[in-house]
């Protein structure tokens, strides 16, 4: 799907609210910043890449929004968008897995929690995968694993740098061990890309945890984290229950990970594209300068 389509959809969504009464702030025009509580004009927020202009709080972005922000206009060509998940275990907890999938699809307009394709970043040709937290918490089941594998194999085959923007709670429970094995599958594909001497940059956005942080997300040459993003393996609640002590205030934030040597840098979203392009240049990527 071309980026233009996505943009139209968003426009339609924001314009749908009937601004009949002037006194009432119509839904979708103003949004309260979760960082500083200031009301923000949605259009302005979008122009600012969903970063609060006042406090720099980073709002979550959907996969297509991210692609729009990070890649050159009209350069993205999506691949394997028609891969859809199955229900290998016939899983039904509080609700059937297939219902969760249908709901996620309705909510995000996506078939799964990752969008992959070829694109250009400041002219550099790349293979890119972007995860969408809105789709069942960005969790990795068969389709996410398969698409990450395929985009990595494509990058290896075509000698392309690989860019993955992560946002995931981890492996998807509803597909059981098949989900867990996707960690091994994606890591194996990344290992081959690495062994070919090709560049891989991963961008960890809020949150990157569990099976995704413990596989392809942390195997990159360069790891970039978004400000304040939650990055770690085990969830804070589980840790608290196990060790029965209070966790440090900045525990598992991007900044915590930077201080402990787990990421290369924390980069503001407004600077992200520029930084990725500068890094690609150092890593020997090729492309056509616009």
């Amino acid at each position, binding site marked *: 799907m071309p980026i233009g389509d996505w943009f139209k959809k968003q426009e339609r969504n924001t314009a749908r609210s009937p601004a009949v009464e002037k006194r009432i702030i119509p839904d979708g025009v103003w949004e309260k910043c979760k960082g500083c509580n200031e009301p923000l004009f949605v259009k302005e927020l979008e122009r600012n890449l969903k970063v609060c202009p006042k406090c720099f709080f980073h709002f979550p972005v959907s996969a297509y929004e991210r692609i729009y922000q990070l890649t050159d206009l009209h350069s993205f060509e999506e691949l*394997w968008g028609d891969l859809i998940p199955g229900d290998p275990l016939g899983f039904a907890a509080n609700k059937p897995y297939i219902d969760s999938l249908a709901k996620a699809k309705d909510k995000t307009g996506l078939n799964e929690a990752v969008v992959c394709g070829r694109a250009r970043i400041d002219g550099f040709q790349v293979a890119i995968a972007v995860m969408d937290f809105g789709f069942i918490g960005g969790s990795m089941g068969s389709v996410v694993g398969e698409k990450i594998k395929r985009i990595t194999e494509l990058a290896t085959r075509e000698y392309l740098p690989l860019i993955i923007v992560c946002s995931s709670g981890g492996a998807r429970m509803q597909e059981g061990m098949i989900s867990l094995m996707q960690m091994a599958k994606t890591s*194996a594909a990344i290992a081959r890309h690495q062994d070919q001497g090709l560049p891989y940059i991963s961008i960890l956005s809020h949150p990157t945890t569990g*099976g995704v942080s413990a596989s392809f997300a942390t195997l990159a040459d360069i790891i970039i984290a978004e400000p304040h993003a939650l990055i770690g393996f085990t969830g804070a609640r589980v840790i608290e229950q196990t060790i029965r002590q209070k966790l440090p205030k900045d525990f598992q934030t991007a900044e915590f990970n930077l201080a402990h040597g787990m990421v290369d840098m924390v980069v503001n979203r407004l600077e992200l594209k520029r930084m990725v392009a500068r890094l690609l240049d150092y890593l020997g990527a090729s492309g056509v300068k616009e």
Partner: protein
Amino acid sequence: MRRFAYDFERPLIELEEKLDAIKRTESAGKEDIAAQIAYLEKQIEKLRVRTYSNLTPWQKVQIARHPDRPRTSDYIEAIFTDFIELHGDRTFRDDLAIIGGFARLDGAKVMVIGHQKGRNTKENLLRQFGMPHPEGYRKALRLMHLANKYRLPLITFVDTPGAYPGIEAEERGQATAIAQSLAELSRLEVPVIVANIGEGGSGGALAIGFGDVMIMLENSYYSVITPEGCVSILWNGEGNPEQAASLLGLTADRLKELGIIDAIVKEPLGGAHHAPALVARDLKKELVKALKDLIKLNPKELVEKRYARLSQIGYYIENPVEAPVEK
């Protein structure tokens, strides 16, 4: 002292204790008592079969966690000869939740790595119940490199509830350590054989838990998340682990059906701890057989085959005519 028993084993264990008590009495030799003993023994046998023949997934998880269940070190002792343990990650410390070293399997030189639980509370505190920190995985990584360098087939034993959940584990990069281990396992140019002997808890198990041949003991489990973890996430704590265990498809049978594992080693009624030597013998047979097949492949073939095996794990629909998820 009362013996350890799960609820579903309780009636059986109580009957066994009753029998023991009668046997200990002075009149045990008398005829009428002897008859009573024989009767009780028969009842116990019947009950044992009834208790253990059709275990639910949750009961299997419990047996996999049994405090008397043989540990990695027990299998190393029973199956291999000439084990030389190697220590440390050369960076931070020696994590006792993972052990490993050189050993011989039927005379063949191999590298062994496994999660190590303790035998008692004191030892479990040292070994953190088999839950490794990043340095444990980095020790494993070091041993994988050695195995590759000296062309030693790698045999791993999986037995962990999961990677250690703690502040320091996160500070030192639990996620990164597991990821690096996964990447390395995939590129090893030597045979990799995995034996799940108890708990296969999530990413912390997987880090040393996939290879060319995957074997599970009958009552071991391998799961994307523990049943308890699944309950707390999916039902907000209002479900029960029995249900979760059934849903997750974590038993050896189910995983063989799904094509994740290759072989299952039978256990005696009640679990491996009822006849450890027998289970070790059968597991050894499987390991030897797997190794015999794998050493026929050259390094490149091994790596390709392992990659292809991982590559095909997944359940999805491509180019759907009609999307089955839509109603």
